[in-house]
């Protein structure tokens, strides 16, 4: 009996580890800068993120170089002059779902969540709080959120000549499809 129990408990504990964390490497984050002169939009589809459904902890990481712009020169200027990707290659977010007690992610459904944490871009960390949704569908969780941030908060300089082309407030969209994390 003992010899049977051991593999069984091992199996159970393993499967529970697998259900703890949800994960992606191909999350989609994009941003908009809208001014009367010009609309600028860039997409990254290489966002890594982990959502821990037992604690409500959530982390994001993305390479700034992975943002793709419509104009190649914009992409170069973004990396070279504005976010300085060589010095600060990554943007990260580390936070948690604040209303985690009120929701049960083991049941299918769409949940309104409030996520709060620290967002680091261009080497500058600021607290961020935003609303979003988590849609649980069996083994998959789909997370979505939109929020705005101020360029000035992240020490990103915009020279006077292009002041009318780049918005001071940037809209960030997050769209992540999580899958169970199996090691």
């Amino acid at each position: 009996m003992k010899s049977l129990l051991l593999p069984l408990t091992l199996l159970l504990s393993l499967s529970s580890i697998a259900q703890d964390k949800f994960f992606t490497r191909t999350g989609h984050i994009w941003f908009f800068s809208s001014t009367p002169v010009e609309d600028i939009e860039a997409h990254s589809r290489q966002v890594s993120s982990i959502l821990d459904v037992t604690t409500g902890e959530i982390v994001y990481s993305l390479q700034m170089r992975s943002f793709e712009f419509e104009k190649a020169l914009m992409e170069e200027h973004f990396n070279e002059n504005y976010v300085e990707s060589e010095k600060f290659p990554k943007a990260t977010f580390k936070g948690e779902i604040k209303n985690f007690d009120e929701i049960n992610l083991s049941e299918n459904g769409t949940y309104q969540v409030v996520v709060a944490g620290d967002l680091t871009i261009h080497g500058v960390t600021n607290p961020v709080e935003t609303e979003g949704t988590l849609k649980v569908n069996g083994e998959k969780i789909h997370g979505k959120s939109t929020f705005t941030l101020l360029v000035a908060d992240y020490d990103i300089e915009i020279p006077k000549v292009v002041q009318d082309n780049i918005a001071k407030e940037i809209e960030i969209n997050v769209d992540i499809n999580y899958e169970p994390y199996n090691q």
Partner: protein
Amino acid sequence: MDMLEETEEQTTQYTIATFKSTRVATGHSIERMPQRQLDFRVAHRFGRVNSGAYEFFGLDQSNIHLSLEYGITDWLMVGIGRSSFQKVVDGFYKLSILRQSTGKKVMPVSVSLFSGIYANGLKQSVPNYDYYFSNRLSFVHQVLIGHKFNELISLQLSPTYIHRNFVETPFDSNDIYALGIGGRVKLTSRVTLNAEYYYRLNPQSEFATVQASNPLSIGFDIETGGHVFQLHFTNSRSMIEPGFIGETTGEWLKGDIHFGFNISRVFNL
């Protein structure tokens, strides 16, 4: 967060912005126009600074080179241009064959191949002599090898071969070999200091008609959104390869210095 680091796939990071422009100063850099981007360039070289106040230190005289340069793909650009000096029409292509990268694939250098053809448009009046169109042509081939050491410093070597179909005397060499070296130092995020020098490998005796010297250019690149301004001081008057590598007559030490600038305006097609 540590777990994320572990799971992140190793990707290849291609080096961008080794130079701000497709030119180091006068000569080509390894950079090319990205796909579907059109670069309209206006380049000026004024007269010699040491020509004095009467010539307003060279600013009374001006040579202009206009060109349209287009990225067919991210690795192939073509261009056409026209110089007022010697009324030369030129065409070129630049092919990017290696890109410097780190990460999964490591490549220490970026390499571009450049070839150009140049047609001198001056009226010829040689008595009793058939002057063929082919006599007007010169050809240039370059291998541009660039390395971006870090955010601040990039260097480039440019082995160059020039063939001139027609030279004035038997003492002039049809073929010119040169080794170019160029570099940049980034001063601020929008301003770089550039320098470029071409060392001609032929003996001086092979430049009989035009007593050529080696071209040296020093200048700044200033970037403002869609424009790049390149301001420089140089001892060459011409802005095209056969001209500034093969026929530069100015000497820095004598004060034969020309002020010049390139303006580059990129359009998205």
